[in-house]
């Protein structure tokens, strides 16, 4: 009798082993990225958390590596409340702005754009992301400046009155768009919009046409279909997008420095504390706030049933 199976090479033995024990292959493949995620990603976050429980020696400026809540007590001073509250409000406004502006675009792209128009859509969304962030922000500063194109256009079309009325709004107005909260809001919406559109588009694309037809068939108007079918099914995408825009706005420290009235934001505070002030523990404590806010935000979203359609 001769052997039916050919002689096995080392590679054959290995593939046989993996075929018999599929989990072994999975473990081999997944371990390096898991190590990266565990050690580098979450590990550094843990180190950050730890730093926030240290304190700084006021005379020597050295970090005292002992557990204390002193830094958090320092964080909860009234002037820091302002920074946190301002950042939170701006993040919420930017998220809302991105959602309102992004939804129709995402809806069009998901439902109607085909072939070439789909490519144009992706290019239009992604192209601004490819250029330097700093260049974009400085370009916006020029656009929004008192001598910029918007002021010029308003004068040329005799609509300066409208612009001035907007700028004289209490709290969010200012000398010019580039030195007001309105200007900062516009720049934030511009830079983070793609992060809102792409997840929304992905979730809208998963809503089958027959579901919209079923809604109309059962007597729903377009507005009712939008409210009771499209929006709930797109909600996971909206939430995913809002996580991006919200957390990106909360952590940003460049836009508030370049555009706006130089009021302090969380990102700026962290930047100053770890740089010029050298107060790493307080910087770390500040950095924990966005994480906590995001966790609360996700918890509320889950309670409201945002992930039921997943």
């Amino acid at each position, binding site marked *: 009798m001769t052997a039916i199976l050919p002689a096995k090479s080392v590679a054959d033995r290995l593939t046989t082993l993996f075929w018999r024990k599929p989990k072994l292959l999975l473990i081999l493949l997944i371990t390096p990225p898991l190590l990266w995620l565990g050690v580098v990603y979450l590990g550094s976050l843990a180190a950050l958390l730890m730093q926030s429980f240290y304190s700084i020696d006021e005379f020597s400026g050295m970090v005292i590596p002992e557990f204390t809540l002193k830094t958090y007590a320092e964080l909860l001073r009234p002037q820091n409340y302002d920074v946190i509250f301002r950042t939170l409000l701006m993040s919420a406004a930017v998220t809302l702005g991105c959602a309102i502006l992004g939804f129709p675009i995402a809806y069009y792209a998901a439902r109607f754009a085909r072939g070439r128009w789909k490519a144009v859509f992706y290019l239009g969304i992604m192209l601004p992301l490819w250029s330097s962030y700093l260049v974009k922000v400085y370009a916006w500063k020029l656009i929004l400046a008192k001598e910029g194109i918007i002021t010029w256009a308003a004068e040329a079309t005799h609509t300066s009155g409208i612009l001035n009325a907007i700028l004289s709004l209490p709290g969010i107005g200012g000398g010019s768009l580039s030195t007001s909260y309105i200007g900062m809001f516009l720049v934030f919406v511009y830079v983070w919009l793609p992060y809102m559109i792409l997840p929304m588009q992905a979730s809208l694309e998963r809503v089958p046409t*027959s*579901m919209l*037809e079923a*809604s*109309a*068939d*059962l*007597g729903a*108007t377009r507005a009712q279909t939008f409210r009771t079918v499209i929006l709930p099914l797109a909600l996971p995408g909206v939430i995913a997008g809002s996580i991006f825009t919200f957390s990106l706005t909360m952590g940003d420290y460049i836009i508030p420095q370049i555009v706006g009235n130089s009021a302090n934001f969380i990102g700026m505070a962290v930047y100053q504390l770890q740089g010029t002030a050298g107060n790493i523990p307080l910087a770390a404590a500040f950095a924990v706030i966005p994480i906590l806010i995001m966790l609360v935000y996700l918890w509320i979203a889950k309670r409201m049933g945002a992930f*039921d359609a997943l």
Partner: protein
Amino acid sequence: MSIAVEFRAVSRHFGPASAPVRAVDAVDLTIAEGAFFAMLGPSGSGKTTCLRLISGFESPTAGEICIFGENVSNTPPHLRNVNTVFQDYALFPHMNVRDNVAYGLMVKGMPRSQRYAKAEEMLALVHLDAYGSRKPAQLSGGQRQRVALARALVNEPRVLLLDEPLGALDLKLREAMQDELKSLQQRLGITFVFVTHDQHEALSMADSLAVFNEGKIAQIGTPAEIYNHPKSRFVADFVGSSNVLPPALTKQLGGPEKWASLRPESLRLDATGPLRGTVTAIRYLGAGHRITLTTHGTDIAAILPAGHPLPETGSTIALGFDATALHIMDQA
């Protein structure tokens, strides 16, 4: 009896006007009130487009569609008193079964307690009383099908449209649902319009059916009429896979020189029979055998009931039939 649905020279073309795809091409059709009407045809024959024209998801390129005498050609779907059971059921995944069924009542503004009571009533009708709080994802295919049915029926439509509703079910479940749909239709007295590509389903359930081919109605009539007296080769071939005999062969068998159809089950082994040929295949069907015979270049299928002695593949045999079984067709 009044007319539930009427098509007057209805066409639906897709694509450019210069070279249109005629999905539905000048179709005239009347469906009587209370009928169980089937639209049968291969895929791409226009049957589903016809259904979508009734529901309002397509609007006619030409012609008029009337539902109970009212011209609805320009009426949007949500204002038509018809409801659809979709092929993929299209249940709302974020709502539980009760809310799915009550959806049509909800958008019309019926108070919650009232619409839930009606929804439960409908769920009982389709034997899903205890499933109101479940999500569609927790149901089996057959249960989803029933929810889709209840969701459509709760609106008390005058016409219920069913788009291949049993296509996704396995054989046993499909047969059970066929019986159930039929009895439901008889109890409620609602006009059912049913799209299918399965001729057995159409023949066994409908009391009247239209066979579609390339955007036109090839034949319309009762199942028995269509099965026994197909008008064209297409109908004979598509409905019940009949043997289609070319004119020359018909003549040889004693008929006029026209296309004819001959049902496989009307043939029997008969040494003196006129159909002589070589057996090329024998297939076991359970209740009998299907043998294929080649004669004068034409393949003829015959179904022999179990218990008969079987010829061997390659042998020459003769088949006989009653003269009445040979059906002469008017059209080619």
